[in-house]
């Protein structure tokens, strides 16, 4: 093979090789598609946050501050739908997943670059459909579209929103297929399965859920839409259908989807913890396989969403026990991260602060999950703010923390610029503080019996609700901060070196930002994923050979 001209200018990164808008919109470069996704989901995150802000404003007063009861229902529905389907589910897989999978594998691109671009267009189209439905009146079903609430009793725009979520499923499936096939087929020479970074294991597990669970949601929503348009009864009891069947099918997707919304975050945290402790991950194989087992067990626990829905007691007992099983691989991860940190020389840069926040908040979220997996306590706690607090600890405290941690960690690689470290730490601390102030009071509210999804509440709950709303406003500021300093860093930030964190992993062996073809030549892998000994030796040798630099 002749030397390609591309290797003559490795400093010409993927960002600037062709600057036209057309080249961005028709790109098949996984790194550019990751950026397209990054911008898109940031818009959706902001949209969903507006819903959250209105909810918290409303609940400052027991009688409600600003919204009518119905508008309130539409706001929490909007918040849920946008955050779950347009932010959390795609979040890490479509941004860091797209950007990093080929880089971590030592490949030039994902297996199906055009399919990857198609997935982005599908996602944008689905987002527009959902937003159309929401802005033309919205709907009041909650993000779960339970029948007959979404069929007989709704006055909202169920159809465009359901169509949008249906479409976003195909985008997820495309991403999942791409990631799985890439990991199987595009590993660089020497990159065995046990030499892969844990991020790839986590994304692999997530993609299995994308591919095997999403189609069940698709068919469920199709049946729901069919029922809506033709007035036939599939789930509607008035027409002879079974509403519980809808819940079974919905949760068969949506419980595994809960793990779509946490597994990639666990992958990010594994990378960050190892890098900032400068140590190999403790119990690498256990952490890797715990991702796979979380995905596998995740398919068997959907019934715990229906303990009070009138399912059989025996089924409920089985689902309860299976739900407890999930805590085993989850705990393995937490203990192994702590094991990695033990005795490490920990650097407390912003990514590590987020990762530590993740570990703490995920642990609280996970432990409170046990209360909900137990039949007896679930009957008391279900449909209260305890549930709201629980899943926000996992999804916001966990996943969003990991997302921000990953954003700080890979920002230099993605953009070639360093963000201001001090501001990064301030924002991380603020997010942690604001988050806890928002959601910890909700555990107490739920325990004391405040039901979720109501626009008003009895007066004795006001203090805790005001605290929660105060926390939300801190959280809002804390989320805006990174937006400001990341934008600033694009223009004024210091140039990032290839490997600013002294991290292992192939993505750090190419320039920041990487060239379009990722590596000047295909890398060869000769050791495990967190081999700091070799990295340090190489760095020492390089320093000795170039004493004047």
């Amino acid at each position: 093979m002749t030397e390609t001209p591309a290797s003559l200018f490795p400093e010409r990164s993927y960002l600037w090789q062709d600057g036209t808008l057309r080249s961005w919109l028709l790109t098949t470069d996984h790194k550019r598609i990751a950026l397209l996704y990054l911008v898109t989901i940031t818009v959706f995150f902001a949209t969903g946050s507006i819903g959250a802000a209105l909810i918290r404003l409303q609940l400052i007063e027991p009688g409600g501050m600003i919204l009518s009861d119905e508008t309130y229902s539409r706001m929490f529905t909007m918040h849920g739908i946008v955050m779950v389907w347009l932010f959390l589910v795609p979040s890490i897989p479509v941004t860091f997943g797209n950007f990093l999978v080929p880089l971590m594998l030592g490949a030039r691109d994902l297996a199906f670059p055009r399919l990857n671009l198609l997935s982005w267009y599908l996602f944008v189209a689905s987002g527009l459909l959902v937003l159309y439905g929401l802005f033309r009146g919205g709907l009041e079903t909650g993000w779960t579209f339970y029948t007959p609430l979404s069929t007989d009793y709704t006055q909202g725009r169920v159809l465009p929103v359901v169509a949008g979520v249906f479409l976003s499923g195909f985008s997820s499936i495309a991403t999942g297929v791409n990631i799985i096939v890439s990991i199987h087929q595009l590993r660089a020479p020497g990159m065995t399965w046990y030499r892969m970074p844990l991020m790839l294991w986590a994304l692999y597990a997530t993609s299995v859920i994308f591919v095997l669970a999403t189609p069940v949601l698709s068919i469920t929503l199709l049946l729901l839409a069919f029922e809506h348009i033709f007035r036939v009864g599939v789930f509607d009891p008035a027409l002879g259908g079974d509403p519980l069947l809808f819940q079974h099918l919905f949760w068969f997707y949506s419980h595994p989807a809960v793990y779509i919304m946490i597994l990639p975050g666990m992958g990010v945290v594994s990378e960050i913890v190892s890098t900032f402790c400068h140590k190999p991950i403790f119990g690498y194989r256990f952490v890797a396989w715990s991702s796979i087992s979380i995905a596998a067990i995740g398919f068997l626990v959907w019934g715990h969403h229906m303990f009070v829905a009138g399912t059989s007691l025996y089924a409920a007992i089985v689902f309860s026990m299976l739900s407890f099983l999930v805590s085993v691989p989850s705990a393995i991860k937490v203990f192994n991260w702590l094991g990695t940190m033990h005795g490490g020389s920990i650097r407390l840069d912003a990514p590590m602060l987020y990762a530590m926040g993740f570990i703490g908040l995920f642990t609280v979220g996970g432990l409170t999950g046990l209360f909900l997996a137990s039949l007896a306590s679930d009957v008391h706690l279900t449909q209260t703010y305890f549930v709201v607090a629980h899943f926000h600890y996992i999804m916001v405290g966990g996943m969003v923390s990991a997302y921000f941690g990953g954003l700080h960690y890979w920002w230099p690689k993605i953009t070639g610029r360093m963000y201001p470290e001090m501001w990064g730490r301030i924002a991380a601390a603020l997010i942690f503080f604001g988050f806890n102030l928002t959601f910890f009071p909700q555990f107490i509210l739920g325990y004391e019996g405040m039901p979720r999804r109501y626009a008003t509440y009895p007066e004795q709950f006001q203090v805790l609700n005001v605290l929660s709303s105060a926390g939300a406003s801190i959280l809002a500021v804390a989320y805006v901060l990174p937006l400001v300093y990341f934008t600033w860093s694009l223009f004024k930030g210091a140039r990032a070196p290839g490997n600013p964190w002294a991290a292992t992993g192939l993505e750090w062996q190419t320039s920041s930002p990487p060239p379009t073809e990722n590596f000047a030549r295909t890398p060869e892998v000769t050791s495990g994923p967190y081999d700091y000994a070799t990295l340090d030796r190489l760095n020492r040798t390089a320093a000795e050979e170039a004493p004047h630099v």
Partner: protein
Amino acid sequence: MSDAADPHGPYETLRHQEETTIAGMWLFLASESLLFGGLFLVSLIYAHTRANGWAAGVRHTDLVIGGVNTVILITSSAIYTLAVEAARQDHKRRAVQAAMTAAALGLVFLLLKAFEWSKEFKEHLFPGTHFAITGADAGGAQLFYSFYFLATFLHAVHMIVGTGLIAWICLRAGKVNPGKSWNTSVEIVGLYWSFVDLVWMILFPVLYLVGRT
């Protein structure tokens, strides 16, 4: 056939790309199985909980058209395998002929299906206020026909996509396209076409046979 892959793509060799594409198709079909799997679960449950009404619905389907269509679809799939075999041996003309025959049979299937639907509309078998089956079994029969129309519609959509894919393959056969393997495209479409066939093999007994007697 050259062995060079697209230098900007992720593959070193064409063979590598072919293998990967086939793997991708299998994975997509796994996903599709879960899509139809959800649908079959619904039928399984209602055929059990609303057995009488469900059976009443089955008795109203047109066994002759359903049976003929089944034969047509199996034949089409079988003929398509000849296209795959011919493509592997680089007999392009024979491959295109076989593929086009398979697609034509697919179109016949769709025409018959459309005829069957129009007949059922006329007989008021589409669920709604004027539904033909009355009495105690009406509810279950409506559920059956809800399932029937959605399932056959979804299957027909897959048939249309499959026919389109075969047409696309036949159009591309004449063009020389370095860095892309025509044989692999024939094989991938074949996987999809057989899958659509397989779905019908489950739908046929569910919609036409089980509970008929």
